[in-house]
């Protein structure tokens, strides 16, 4: 009996222990899911945070602030070295000889643009001006001319001027005479350049010319200003006296040409430096011009140190490797995009306005007139439009394609009068002064494509090896540019798929020994070879035929290489023989599959309604097609009476122009927040959460956000991202600007403050060097880590559609692919340092004039292959972390309402996971809260703080959009869920940035250890008890037996 009892005891113990083992094992798994809550209840901590810098996910590359500053200066100087473009170099004017004195003429020679510090220029104490840079480079500057310019004409001083934003008076640098730094909003532009006849009146000695030695070289610097809200008005120039001249403000004025003349009179040679982000009209001083000079160089919009690099180029200390990011023409009227520029009203624009008829704004009279760039009017601002009828033919793509067709395809009527400004018949040589990609190297070299490999897969690359041969007797640095020509087929002609005869792909640079060779490998995603067919395939296609690759010193040289490859010669009309060979890659049949999907999503039309013809219902607009240059050359569609009321979609059109892209629904209750105790912190966000936005943590986290705060945080998102109640994310401050962080770093040890916004967008563009852009991205990112600032509007990637946009100085180029590759470099560098660098202003900010409402109509091919392609490299290929959306409309739709662009393209096709911000929200009738949420905007830039709610207005409604409240949105689950999804992307991005720049480690708490011991002990006890039970059971049976 005793044995039996003992067996029962052990059976019971075995059952108990097995049971406890199951409980402890499954319990351990369960506690893993509720670790944070258990920690909270028991006061334990499952994670330790390691704050030391070595453990940071994003580390500074520089040990001291001095090293950081030195790296920033180095990049800025290299931008000058690599971005300065020698456009014209005759009579040996360059490199400048140190034996000859230089004489500086022009206001900008002594105060290069920009002369004030701010967003665009750092203004550090050790900033280098042109006189200093040239002197440091070993040149002697004529003191007499310098003296009367600086002390007589310019007379630098300070004045109290009102702050643009606050109106507060503040001290600012001023001059008695200075070029106009801000051209205004299509206002008359005064070209302030003091003509030589006034020199003596302004303080020059009567014998000032005698001070100049006969062998001196004149350096004449001309500048053009720019700025936010600024747009040049074609033909609006005023002279120094303030008289209208009828000339283009970007052309050289008679006063400027008088300076040229006096420089030519007094000096042996004349070099002109172009100090502008807007391409100037240089016909008068170019070859054959009435005031032709010996040399012209582009120096862009400089910053603190770039001129040191420029001086190294001018003196030949480094080879000239910069290239023009834009085409320089004899007359801006020759640019087809200029035909449709500025915008005018629809014939019946008033019908969009309302007198109390908008249910969102009961009783309010809302107009439809244009507003200033900074808002302030009660208007939908949907009255103005432009038609971008030039299609993909922006910049060189127009000029080089037309040149190519004038020789290769006479049936296309390239040599017609349409668009000709210099003679009755269009002639490339007369219209174009300096082509895209042009830049004269001091050292003779050739560039040849050695091999091209095209990986024709969705994520494949074109890999081209370009051999650079240094034909000179000096070691040097050289630029290789890769161009392609895609086949233009019957299919294209039939379906209006436009192809540029020359397309820039990318570039690279290399050091090459004298007489030696070096290979430059250029890699660019194959997807950029595809064209968008919006009519037939309604996706990206690659035509059958030969794809021609060449390396060339500019787009025009590339065009000639292609023509020669196709059997043409100078006898056929080419203006020069080919300088390089062509490598062909053949595609046997049309491919409409490979690039018809991206990231698992189909690619098809998303912007049919961007076409004005979609609304008018007929062929109101004829978009430029190379198959008929004459018949399709753009007309000004502002001179065509477009009546909204005549549209078969008039109601829909009016609704869109009123900003009602989305209407709040009332039939699907939204789920309120569920606080699961998740929080945004390093303990809960581990690699598995950071690596996968689909990790359930993110969905659970954003579902802790209440309806009020989910919608509120999106529509009141900037310029500070506030802490969300149940998320407890850190506040993230947004920072300007395109030249780098404007915030100064103060070294506690020395008390010195240093500013890192020392970069130049214009010169990084003309450097044609994506590697340099990447290096700048890393430096920009490092500066963010030093400043503890992680969110920056730190570059501009909008295409320069015309020379007149006041923001061109913030952008890179007229070419989408140069912009794409430079953007790729900058954003990649920043992302690697955890800095959210958001490029401005995605979505056709083609002009500042009426940017807050103008409709830009276009085809979907233009939509996909021009401005947006410029952003694709940085945001998609480089996994950029932020972007700012343009102000204007795409078609009738506010760019910030454009779900096709922001969700279908940016998120789905491009796989972009970063934050998406609007530009300045300054007009509640134009920016529609619910439409922005539904498009995918993650933060609306409204500049307030602690305003994550839609109940801060009177009677608990939203403070801006009074029709928005918890009650009005709580029955629209799609809206609320989209708001949460948008915030998910934003929080996910914060987690992947330096905002969360600490490492955490999981440690075992006492209860982890207890559970672990319990599991082991109960398992052992269960096994032992089972064994004992078996033994006693069997012994008992034996005894019984």
């Amino acid at each position, binding site marked *: 009996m005793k044995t039996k009892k003992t067996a029962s005891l052990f059976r*019971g*113990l075995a*059952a*108990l222990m097995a049971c406890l083992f199951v409980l402890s094992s*499954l319990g351990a798994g369960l506690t893993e899911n509720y670790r944070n809550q258990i920690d909270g209840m028991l006061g334990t901590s499952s994670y330790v945070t390691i704050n030391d810098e070595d453990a940071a996910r994003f580390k500074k590359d520089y040990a001291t602030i001095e090293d950081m500053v030195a790296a920033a200066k180095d990049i800025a100087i290299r931008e000058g070295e690599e971005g300065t473009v020698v456009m014209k170099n005759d009579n040996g004017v360059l490199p400048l000889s140190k034996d000859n004195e230089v004489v500086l003429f022009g206001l900008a020679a002594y105060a290069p643009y920009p002369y004030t510090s701010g967003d665009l220029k750092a203004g550090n104490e050790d900033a280098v001006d042109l006189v200093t840079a040239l002197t440091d480079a070993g040149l002697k500057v004529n003191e007499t001319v310098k003296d009367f310019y600086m002390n007589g004409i310019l007379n630098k001083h300070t004045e109290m001027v009102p702050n643009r934003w606050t109106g507060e008076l503040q001290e600012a640098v001023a001059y008695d005479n200075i070029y106009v730094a801000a051209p205004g909003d299509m206002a008359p532009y005064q070209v302030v350049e003091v003509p030589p006849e006034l020199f003596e009146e302004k303080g020059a000695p009567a014998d000032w010319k005698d001070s100049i030695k006969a062998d001196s070289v004149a350096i004449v610097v001309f500048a053009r200003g720019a700025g936010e809200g600024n747009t040049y008005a074609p033909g609006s120039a005023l002279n120094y006296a303030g008289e209208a001249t009828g000339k283009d403000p970007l052309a050289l004025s008679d006063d400027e040409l008088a300076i040229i003349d006096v420089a030519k009179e007094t000096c042996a040679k004349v070099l002109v430096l172009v100090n502008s982000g807007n391409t100037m009209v240089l016909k008068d001083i170019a070859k054959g011009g009435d005031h032709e000079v010996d040399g012209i160089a582009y120096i862009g919009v400089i910053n603190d140190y770039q001129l040191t690099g420029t001086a190294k180029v001018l003196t030949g200390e480094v080879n000239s490797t910069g290239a023009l990011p834009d085409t320089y023409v004899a007359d801006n009227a020759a640019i087809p995009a200029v035909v449709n520029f500025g915008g005018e009203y629809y014939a019946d624009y008033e019908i969009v306005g309302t007198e109390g008829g908008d249910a969102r704004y009961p009783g309010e009279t809302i107009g439809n007139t244009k507003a200033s760039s900074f808002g302030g009017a009660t208007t939908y601002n949907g009255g103005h439009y432009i038609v971008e009828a030039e299609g993909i033919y922006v910049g060189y793509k127009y000029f080089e394609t037309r040149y190519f067709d004038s020789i290769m395809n006479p049936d296309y009527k390239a040599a017609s009068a349409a668009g000709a400004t210099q003679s009755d018949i269009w002639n490339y040589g007369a219209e174009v002064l300096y082509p895209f990609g042009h830049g004269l190297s001091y050292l003779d070299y050739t560039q040849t494509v050695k091999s091209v490999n095209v990986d024709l897969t969705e994520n494949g690359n074109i890999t081209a090896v370009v051999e650079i041969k240094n034909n000179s007797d000096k070691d040097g640095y050289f630029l290789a540019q890769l161009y392609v020509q895609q086949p233009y087929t019957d299919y294209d002609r039939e379906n209006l798929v436009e192809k540029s005869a020359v397309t820039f792909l990318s570039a690279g640079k290399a050091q090459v020994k004298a007489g030696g060779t070096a290979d430059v490998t250029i890699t660019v995603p194959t997807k950029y070879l595809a064209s968008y067919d919006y009519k037939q395939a309604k996706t990206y296609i690659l035509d059958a035929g030969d794809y021609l690759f060449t390396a060339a010193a500019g787009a025009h040289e590339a065009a000639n290489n292609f023509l020669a490859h196709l059997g043409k010669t100078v006898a056929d009309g080419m203006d020069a023989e080919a300088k390089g060979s062509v490598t062909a890659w053949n595609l046997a049949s049309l491919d409409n599959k490979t690039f018809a999907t991206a990231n698992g999503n189909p690619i098809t039309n998303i912007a049919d309604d961007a076409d004005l013809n979609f609304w008018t219902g007929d062929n109101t607009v004829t978009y430029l097609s190379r198959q008929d240059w004459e018949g399709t050359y753009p007309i000004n569609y502002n001179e065509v009476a477009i009546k909204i009321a005549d549209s078969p979609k008039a109601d829909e059109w009016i609704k869109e122009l009123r900003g009602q892209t989305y209407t709040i629904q009332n039939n699907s209750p939204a789920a309120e927040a569920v606080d*699961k105790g998740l929080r945004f912190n390093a303990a809960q966000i581990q690699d598995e959460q950071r690596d996968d936005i689909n990790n359930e943590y993110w969905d659970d986290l954003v579902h802790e956000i209440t309806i009020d705060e989910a919608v509120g945080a999106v529509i009141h998102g900037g310029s500070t991202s506030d802490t969300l109640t149940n998320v407890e994310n850190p506040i993230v401050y947004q920072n300007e600007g395109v030249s780098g962080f404007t915030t100064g770093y103060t070294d506690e040890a020395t008390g010195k403050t240093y500013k890192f916004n020392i970069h130049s967008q214009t010169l990084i563009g003309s450097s044609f060097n994506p590697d340099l852009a990447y290096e700048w991205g890393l430096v920009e990112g490092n500066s963010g880590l030093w400043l503890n600032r992680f969110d920056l509007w730190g570059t501009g990637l909008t295409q320069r559609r015309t020379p007149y946009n006041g923001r061109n100085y913030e952008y890179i180029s007229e070419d989408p692919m140069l912009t794409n590759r430079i953007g790729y470099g900058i954003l990649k560098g920043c992302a690697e340092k955890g800095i959210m660098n958001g490029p401005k202003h995605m979505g056709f900010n083609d002009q500042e004039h009426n940017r807050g409402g103008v409709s830009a109509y276009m085809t979907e091919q233009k939509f996909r292959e021009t401005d947006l392609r410029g952003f694709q490299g940085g945001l998609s290929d480089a996994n950029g972390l932020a972007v700012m959306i343009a102000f204007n409309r795409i078609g009738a739709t506010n760019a910030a309402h454009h779900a096709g662009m922001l969700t279908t393209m940016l998120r789905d096709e491009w796989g972009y996971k970063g934050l998406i911000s609007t530009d300045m929200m300054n007009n509640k009738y134009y920016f529609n809260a619910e439409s922005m949420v539904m498009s995918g905007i993650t933060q609306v830039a409204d500049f307030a703080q602690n305003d994550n709610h839609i109940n801060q207005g009177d009677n608990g409604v939203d403070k801006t959009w009074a029709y928005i409240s918890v009650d009005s949105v709580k029955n629209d689950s799609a809206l609320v869920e989209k708001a949460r999804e948008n915030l998910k992307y934003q929080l996910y991005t914060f987690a992947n940035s330096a905002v969360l720049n600490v490492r955490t480690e999981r440690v075992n708490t006492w209860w982890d250890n207890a559970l672990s011991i319990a599991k082991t002990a109960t398992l052992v006890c269960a096994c032992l008890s089972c064994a004992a039970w078996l033994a006693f059971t069997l012994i008992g049976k034996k005894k019984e037996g």
Partner: protein
Amino acid sequence: MKKLSVGAWITCVAVVLAIAAFVLYSSNIGGEGYYKDAAVNNLPLMVWGAVACLVVAVLLNAAKGGKVIELLSGVLRIGAPSLLAYGLMNLIAGRVDGLGYIYFSNADVAKEVQTAANMASAQSAIWSMGLLGGAMLIAVIAAFFSLRKKNA
């Protein structure tokens, strides 16, 4: 009935409690309220498996048999509480989020979520967990007792 041992009686109690827990669980997911249609993976298998183990163990002991029968019965009685424990943990894992939501949300949310149906559903879930836990405990206790009544 008088022939049943204390162990068998206790086992029967465990069986009844397990069945009661399952019935309550079934009504919980079948009726109105927060846990409507919120079935828990493997729970029926675990509960009915445990019930079967216990019933078979009792029946096996009612029959005359040798050590194989006794060993088989013992294994079933050791295993049954573990199955109930497994089921209980799955039930807790499937209910804890909802219970936290219903009982521990902030005031605004609680006002929305603490409806009569949801509260009844939550209480029913708690009861089913309690009954299942009770069944497990009683089954463990039963394992300490013999299923055969001592001979007089």
